[in-house]
């Protein structure tokens, strides 16, 4: 832990980090565009320049160096003295900002980045309120560089973050800088568009509005969005994300820094894989079938109805006649509430883990990286919480069976009541053995997002909410228990899974993940330890 002096104040910082990083971690607002902790250092934006004390060549006395040095390229060293508040540093920022704005169009009103743009912020904080340029601005039309990304070249500040990302993290290196001087621009090679699976990250990395998301383009101004911390559900990596919504409509997902899990990145599959949330086919109300007639009971009556149905089966056929298929889309808390509720009625009920969707192979980034250099992994297991549900099932013990056994035994008529939790974003996830078996049981209760053959056959259908509407924890592939918060309300008529399962299990009041985790941790200590990423310095981006 070296000690360095910034602006006359001594601070302690981590070892082997650039001075810029140390200053940001100390809470200083040092402007920077090209520096990103996840990428190599090029020191090309010249905004973070500082003054440093160096030995005078003649007298060997420590004096302020006559030239400014880039703070992103200078590593911290015990006892070094730097300053960011000298007139030379302030004048440099002012000049550099003016230089950046020479060709930048004044199109903030139509630019999607406005509101979270570091050109706006820095020009407001460190630049001039007027422009001295009289020459016409260089016009550079927008370019379609990839299936999901647009490039507005005239807004670009050439920080080369996107180029470095494509080379160093994605490993496919589609982007490059062509030409020199004021004609320099970001481009792709002819016939080779930006098509890697991490391309959404270049939009996050872009400190200005040059790279924009086609999916989010013109959809909403960013100052209307409210962010909620969540966890991505697209694979078992469990990337930390922020869910941006306004008035209960989801607009985009953004990655959060989460060292050891996803660092700064997320894949496009997770980033754009939330469209099912606003699908109109979703199940939004509970349905109870009595013969051919269906009815929608009020949520308050539902616990009693479900209890009556299950108790009738247990009294008739014994406590081992009930089986539950838990879904890897459920949060740990919900799986635990459901399993304990069923076990409270039928103590010998069998628990099974539902379908885990495996698609393709593990994809490691950068392409062709050996194990030590892997910077991002997209896992083939496309459900967020297989491990968490397994932990709940194993923690509860008792009759634990595989899902194949469950379907086979239910098909043979061994189970009279079956509770199947779905919640997979693809309608029609259920396999034939399960559908056949479901048709034979006396009481079928299905929780799902979309109607399908299972919900058609079910006596009781309950809506399964999308993960952005729920609250709880997912345990990722490495056993890290990560909490996610609810970002939006469920569709009208629906109640959060956690809430109705909480009521079903006999608790009163509001369901919160923390309350249930406290109950779980009494018997399963692994649910007492949460993995929450450290905060990012305020002025880091």
């Amino acid at each position, binding site marked *: 832990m070296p000690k360095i002096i910034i602006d006359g104040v001594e601070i302690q910082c981590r070892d082997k980090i650039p001075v810029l990083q140390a200053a940001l971690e100390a809470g200083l607002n040092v402007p920077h565009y090209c520096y990103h902790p996840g990428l190599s250092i090029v020191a090309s934006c010249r905004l973070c320049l500082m003054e440093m004390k160096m030995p005078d060549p003649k007298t060997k006395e420590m004096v302020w160096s006559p030239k400014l040095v880039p703070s992103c390229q200078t590593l911290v060293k015990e006892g070094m003295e730097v300053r960011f508040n000298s007139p030379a540093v302030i004048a440099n920022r002012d000049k550099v900002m003016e230089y950046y704005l020479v060709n930048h*169009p*004044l*199109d*903030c*009103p*139509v630019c999607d980045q*406005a509101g979270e743009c570091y050109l706006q912020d820095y020009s407001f904080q460190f630049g001039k309120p007027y422009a001295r*340029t*009289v020459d*016409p*601005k260089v*016009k550079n039309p927008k370019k379609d560089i990839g299936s999901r990304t647009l490039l507005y070249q*005239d807004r670009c500040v050439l920080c080369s973050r996107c180029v470095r990302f494509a080379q160093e993290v994605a490993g496919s290196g589609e982007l490059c800088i062509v030409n020199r001087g004021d004609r320099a621009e970001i481009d792709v090679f002819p016939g080779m568009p930006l098509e890697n699976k991490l391309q959404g990250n270049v939009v996050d990395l872009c400190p200005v509005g040059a790279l924009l998301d086609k999916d989010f*383009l*013109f*959809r909403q*101004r960013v*100052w*209307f969005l409210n962010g909620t911390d969540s966890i991505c559900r697209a694979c078992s990596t469990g990337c930390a994300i922020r869910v941006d919504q306004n008035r209960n409509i989801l607009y985009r997902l953004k990655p959060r820094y989460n060292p050891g899990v996803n660092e700064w990145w997320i894949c496009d599959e997770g980033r754009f894989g939330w469209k099912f949330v606003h699908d109109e086919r979703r199940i939004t109300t509970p349905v109870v079938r009595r013969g051919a007639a269906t009815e929608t009971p009020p949520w308050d009556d539902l616990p009693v109805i479900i209890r009556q149905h299950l108790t009738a089966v247990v009294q008739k056929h014994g406590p081992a006649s009930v089986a539950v298929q838990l879904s890897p889309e459920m949060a740990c808390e919900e799986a635990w509430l459901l399993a304990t509720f069923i076990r409270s009625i039928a103590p010998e009920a069998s628990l099974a883990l539902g379908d885990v969707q495996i698609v393709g192979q593990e994809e490691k980034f950068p392409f062709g990286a050996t194990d030590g250099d892997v910077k991002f992994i997209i896992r083939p297991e496309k459900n967020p919480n297989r491990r968490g549900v397994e932990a709940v099932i194993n923690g509860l013990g008792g009759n634990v069976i595989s899902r194949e056994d469950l379907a086979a035994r239910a098909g043979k008529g061994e189970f009279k009541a079956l509770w199947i939790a779905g919640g997979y974003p693809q309608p029609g996830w259920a396999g034939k053995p399960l559908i056949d078996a479901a048709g034979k049981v006396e009481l079928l209760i299905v929780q799902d997002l979309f109607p399908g053959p299972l919900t058609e056959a079910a006596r009781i259908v309950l809506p399964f909410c999308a993960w952005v509407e729920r609250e709880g924890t997912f345990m990722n592939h490495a056993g890290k228990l990560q909490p996610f918060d609810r970002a939006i309300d469920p569709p009208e008529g629906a109640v959060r899974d956690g809430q109705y399962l909480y009521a079903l299990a006999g608790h009163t009041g509001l369901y919160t993940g923390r309350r249930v985790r406290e109950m779980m941790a009494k018997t399963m200590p692994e649910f007492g330890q949460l993995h929450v990423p450290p905060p990012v310095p305020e002025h880091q981006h």
Partner: protein
Amino acid sequence: MIRDSDIVFVDEPRLTAADRLYLPQVVMGLKTTFRHLFKKKVTLQYPEEKRPMRVENYRGVHRLNKDEKGRVACVACFMCETACPAHCIHIEGGEAPWPDREKYPIKFDIDELRCIYCGMCEEACPVDAIELTPEFSIVGLSREEMVFDKEKLLEMFDRTRELKPRKNPVITGYEYNTGGPIPPSDDQTEGLKAPGQPQR
């Protein structure tokens, strides 16, 4: 805190015999009435007669201005929606069908019943596309009718363009990409020369 010395006790004046009779007071009152009867009238027979109005800064129903080519001038930047204290503006932006423009409003709804006619939208607009007109007597038979959509607001522009022409030059217009600096408008330079002058 009120001190005792601040309190002034006022006694009711004792009424004289004339006061008790009321008649002198009635005559005094009638005198005022008759005086005003023969003075110049200040009231107006409203629907037939109308007060002179300062059309350039009257804050009536909104309009959406059209540019020289007859297209909606709005660039869907949502500044008015952001500034609106009554949350009565609802915009949906989209990619403009014209090559020289980036963004335009697909939908532009103003709830004229919810609006408080403060004029913040007009001030916030960077392209002077939304303006308040001198039109104030609008009627509708339902609430839905009073939610003005894009077509209705553009129609308001056609109805009021003679009365109140679109005067302000576009300051930060979308002509940015036609090249060349945009000269500061006259109002701005005047404002810089004489700061603090009351604007009339």
